[in-house]
């Protein structure tokens, strides 16, 4: 029986290849660089530099990736775990994913002026189907192309600066898919559904409470009792409604399909959103003083007026918009994935992790 699938099989003499060693190497390098950065380099008297730890993280991430690749090369003489994710199918999907990011991001983020962006749909989709590295690269490429290559009206000045955020989103999406969080589990037992439902709904409610507290709490809106009230109320309502809509869709999917994966997807979305906010806030604050031309700028303004400096204000805004945005995006991607035929998914590098178990006929 022949398959004709080409996988380089260089095996070094007598050494067992320990996969986890590579991750350890990467983590060590990452920690060393971040630690060294914080201890030695980031002692500038220049205000902006001390807050730009995003750049530090970028360097650390790139070095960690290089360490991972080097470790694998040393162990096996090739970097198959990375190149395997980049077969022709991935290469063909990448431009489509990039276009999805840009078209949807432009249509939703720039045109509709609601505080979600929907500009990582392609990144997360390809991360799930092909792997973390294609996901990361797609995110970076999409942001760079969005700024440096495309003419108006598809253009965005600020996207390139956020390439790092997009990379991390792609990595996380690929990681979540790899550990099976996007594999449909129809016919989950009643108990599983209940537990999953509680966890996910709990998280969403926590998020919604945070949003409410930020706006209407002591730090928030009493300064604007007069003229500006309606505007900020509307924005708060939109964010809240989106969260509620997500919960409703989620509940429908969960109980109609008896598919507890929906809960996993919700957690993945919110988690990715929080990480994304953490990384994008310093970039927005330092490079663009918090203003990105999206519908979220007024949120930043609100927070700044209530006393936060630029960095904290952008961070507060991010913690509001990003989890909602990523939650909605992850759900959309999950819906796309379950609409794709098994045959189609099976041919992608990570396809086997996206197909329900035991549904007849394995992957060859």
């Amino acid at each position, binding site marked *: 029986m022949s398959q004709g699938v080409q996988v380089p099989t260089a095996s070094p003499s007598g050494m067992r290849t320990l996969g986890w060693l590579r991750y350890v190497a990467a983590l060590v390098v990452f920690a060393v660089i971040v630690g060294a950065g914080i201890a030695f380099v980031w002692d500038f008297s*220049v205000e*902006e530099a001390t807050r730009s730890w995003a750049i530090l993280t970028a360097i650390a991430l790139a070095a960690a990736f290089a360490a991972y690749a080097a470790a694998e090369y040393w162990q096996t003489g090739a970097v198959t775990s990375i190149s395997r994710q980049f077969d*022709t199918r991935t*290469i063909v999907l990448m431009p*489509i994913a990039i276009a999805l990011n840009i078209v949807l991001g432009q249509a939703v983020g720039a045109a509709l002026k609601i505080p979600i962006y929907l500009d990582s749909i392609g990144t997360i989709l390809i991360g799930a189907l092909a792997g973390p590295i294609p996901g990361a690269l797609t995110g970076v490429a999409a942001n760079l192309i969005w700024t*440096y290559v495309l003419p108006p009206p598809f253009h965005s*000045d600020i996207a390139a600066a956020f390439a790092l955020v997009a990379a991390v989103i792609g990595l996380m999406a690929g990681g979540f898919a790899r550990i099976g969080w996007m594999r449909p589990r129809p016919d989950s037992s009643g108990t599983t559904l209940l537990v999953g439902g509680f966890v996910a709904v709990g998280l969403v409610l926590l998020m919604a409470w945070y949003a409410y507290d930020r706006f209407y709490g002591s730090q928030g809106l009493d300064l604007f009792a007069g*003229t500006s009230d309606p505007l900020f109320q509307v924005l708060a309502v939109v964010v809240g409604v989106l969260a509620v809509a997500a919960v409703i869709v989620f509940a429908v999917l969960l109980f109609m399909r008896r598919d507890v994966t929906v809960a996993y997807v919700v957690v993945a979305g919110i988690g990715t959103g929080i990480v994304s906010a953490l990384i994008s806030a310093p970039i927005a604050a330092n490079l663009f003083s918090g203003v990105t031309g999206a519908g979220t700028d007024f949120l930043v*303004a609100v927070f700044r007026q209530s006393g936060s400096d630029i960095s904290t204000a952008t961070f507060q805004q991010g913690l509001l918009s990003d989890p909602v945005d990523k939650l909605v995006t992850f759900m959309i991607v999950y819906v796309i994935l379950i609409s794709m035929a098994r045959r189609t998914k099976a041919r992608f590098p990570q396809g086997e992790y996206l197909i329900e178990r035991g549904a007849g006929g394995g992957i060859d």
Partner: protein
Amino acid sequence: MPDFLGQPGPTPWHRLAPLTKLVIAIGTAIAAVLVGGVIGPLLLVLFGVLLPARAAGVLPRLMRLSLLLSLPIGVSALLVNLFFYPGGQQVLFQVGPITATTEGLALALQTLARILAISGAITLFYLTTRPADLVLDLERRGVSARVGFVANASVQAVPSMLDRATTIVAAQRARGLDTQAGIWRRVRGLVPIVGPVIMGAIAQVEERTMALEARGFTRPGPRTLLWTPGDSSRQRLARWLVVAGVVAVGVARATGLLSSVAWLG
């Protein structure tokens, strides 16, 4: 060799190697961010964007496009910084309960200058270089053909996806979908469009993958190129000078040299 391939550009600036123009664009943008202040970025705009644009004969188009690009974010930046700068002491004027401060104005101008520099540099690059030429230039220098494929295909994918979306919008409209309504209707209306666009694109992936592999796409190593953009040692020198300049500005910024030069603040 057919004469419609490898056409040189109309002006000497156009005929520069794509890599050179790219380095200049990115260098100008990064330098503008690093330099900070208002005068620095404006000088960069003058020498890195406006003068070359004039030499290339694209100045009017560049100004139109660039201003168009920066308008939304510029207005946002101006308003947010001018009015909502916390801790601003010197009041310029007041509009109801909102005050404009001098410090806010300073930051607003700084941000505007930076945005102008970035947008101008990128627009100049876009107006004088074809993306396919840049990809060829990079491929000639050793970048993998598959990377070049992704770059070229991505640039084409956005307009073609929008075309498909427009067709689908027209079809949906014929079926009674209301695209002129308010925001909530529009969000709901997006769904029947987004679905077919995405699924249509994914369906094509399989066929295109087969076609590419059957046409030898998976062969490792470089492929034959029909033509490549020209380059020269002077351009190489210029590129390295730009890189060195950006690094110098970065070092000056980091070590506080720049802040000590008063007029750059």
